[in-house]
């Protein structure tokens, strides 16, 4: 186990700067998830930590040691790739034991270690098989086993679940989380899937265009988003964003619609703002109505139904009960607790609440 510290990390490919001064501190034994859309720099950051990419400027520390100029093999890390990268010409046993080739363990100790890891991953019966004889989930487990066997200070996962089907992904998500609880190693996990990030992370790092947008616990990034990007990226469906103008302690959305909000900081009247409302925080058909609209699409999900409501020409998504959803075309009232509303500066996108 070890801490990981990134200081002012800049990475350029030729003249294109893709990381613009990243700072991140990962605690010992922490499970941290880097999440963001394609091209945000999350995989590049991970590859730099692994030593597979050079640093343009900045410093990377693993434990107390600066590793900028260390080869990947000297960084005491293990990495699980999106494509598994298990060797097709080797059996599962050889694949898992591959990382021990350069270790100083004796052969019986190596075999013992391989057996232990295989047992943890429930792969003992598959040890003599080749990758072509395994399912996608089993192959990914072999890849994890190859990383585990070396008992590294830091585990790096580069979108390891992207190639699995939805059911298997949920299962593997749980397995990786259990694994973390068991081995208590530092894990840095890259994904573009916000559900993976929310369910697995101790803290989430949300990235966009080579910058960190917010670092926080799943609770913080969901309930206290730092800006509009984070607010919309985390949560499905995305947060409703309604543009308006700040006036006399309210968000004036149109001539007929103003919503009062309690904001601690001073906002000048006339400031363009965006009101953020999570679909989960909107109650359909409540008497304390915030606003009213017409239902134009219903998406039943079983336990709940997504209700698309047209409010004053804008589309607002709300969640209703799966058992008693509103009717199509019906006029419904929507309400929300004032404590659950978010306010953002329309120009900078920064949170004002």
């Amino acid at each position, binding site marked *: 186990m070890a801490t990981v510290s990134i200081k002012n990390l800049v990475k350029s490919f030729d003249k294109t700067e893709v990381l613009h001064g990243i700072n991140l501190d990962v605690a010992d034994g922490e499970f941290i998830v880097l999440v963001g859309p394609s091209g945000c720099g999350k995989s590049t950051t991970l590859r730099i930590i*692994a*030593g*597979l990419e050079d640093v343009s400027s900045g410093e990377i520390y693993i434990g107390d040691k600066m590793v900028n100029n260390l*080869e*990947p*093999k000297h960084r005491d*890390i*293990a*990495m699980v*790739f*999106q*494509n*598994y*990268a*298990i*060797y*097709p*010409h080797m059996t599962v046993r050889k694949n898992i034991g*591959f*990382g021990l*080739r*350069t*270790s100083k363990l004796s052969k019986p100790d190596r075999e013992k270690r391989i057996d232990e890891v295989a047992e943890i991953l429930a792969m003992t019966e598959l040890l003599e098989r*080749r*990758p*072509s004889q395994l399912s*996608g989930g089993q*192959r990914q487990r072999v890849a994890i086993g*190859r990383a585990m066997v*070396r008992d590294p200070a830091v585990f790096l996962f580069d979108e390891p679940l992207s*190639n699995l089907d939805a059911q298997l992904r949920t299962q593997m998500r749980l397995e990786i989380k259990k694994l973390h609880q068991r081995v208590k190693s530092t894990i840095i996990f890259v994904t573009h899937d916000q559900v993976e990030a929310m369910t697995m992370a101790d803290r989430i790092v949300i990235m966009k265009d080579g910058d960190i947008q917010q670092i926080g616990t799943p609770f913080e990034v969901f309930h206290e988003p730092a800006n509009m990007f984070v607010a919309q990226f985390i949560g499905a469906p995305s947060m409703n964003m309604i543009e308006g103008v700040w006036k006399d302690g309210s968000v004036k959305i149109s001539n007929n619609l103003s919503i009062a909000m309690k904001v601690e900081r001073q906002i000048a009247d006339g400031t363009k703002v965006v009101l953020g409302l999570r679909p989960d925080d909107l109650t359909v058909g409540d008497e304390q109505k915030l606003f009213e609209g017409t239902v134009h699409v219903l998406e039943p999900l079983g336990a709940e139904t997504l209700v698309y409501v047209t409010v004053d020409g804008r589309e607002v998504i709300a969640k209703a009960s799966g058992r008693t959803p509103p009717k199509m075309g019906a006029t419904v009232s929507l309400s929300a607790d004032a404590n659950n509303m978010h306010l953002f500066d329309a120009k900078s996108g920064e949170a004002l609440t």
Partner: protein
Amino acid sequence: MTTVDNLTVKASSKTLMAIKTGKRPKNMGQIIRWLLLFMGGIAMVTPIAYMISTSLKFPHEVYNLNFIPDEPTIENYTYVLEDGRFFGWFKNSLVIATLTTISNVLFDSLVGYTLCKFRFPGRTIIFVAILSTLMIPTEMLVIPWYLMSQSFGWLDTQWGIMFPGLMTAFGTFLMKQFFETVPDDFIEAARIDGLNELQIWWTVAMPLVKPALAALAIFVFLGNWTAFIWPLIVTNSMEMYTLPVGLSTFGDEADVAWELIMTGAAISTLPTLVVFLVFQRYIIRGVVMAGLKG
């Protein structure tokens, strides 16, 4: 099930239609393809059959163009195998072809791997330079090779015969192209697992391109086994001749001993057959992808 039934119905109605309209249900294109393949097969087998046939003839019968000898004999085989020179030439060819094959498999793949998986200044220029040598005909290279051999003292030596072919541009190109199919993730995973670059090449990359190595080994072995012009030029003594050069000396100024040449040629095809049989099982693609997603 419905789909299968529908297909059966469609297929049956097509056949019925063909019978009603008097068209033959067989595909003419397929017949033509078979015919062409058959002709190609005949064209390839005939010289081999004729070689074996001639090797079983007496000298007076050689110019009769019959496939089956009137009086078959193994006397030519006895003569060639008892002739001490034949085994010397055979040994020379075997040593030269084997060493050249090993050298090509190792060095072409090493250079191909380096050009494919490493980023360094001048990489493209080096690759283009290697490729451009493919455009120079061997005949043009023979004189510089000879002068080199002369200045290094390699004339009439096995090394002299071998050195121009120890690495080839074609092999480098072939291997580079095959290494392109090895995903970088494999290489990077091995790098993280602590292997050095040479170990990664040997342990991870090479087993993944076995089909290409097998193809390269077959090409290089056959090319060197049958090489004639350069060994003829660079060797002077009978002892240093390779098999093709040695076989051409059978007979005398007045007459060529075709029956002996064909006998030698028939025996000399055996190693090439062995090489082909050993390596052909590796020429099965699809191994690389098994360790990846899907």
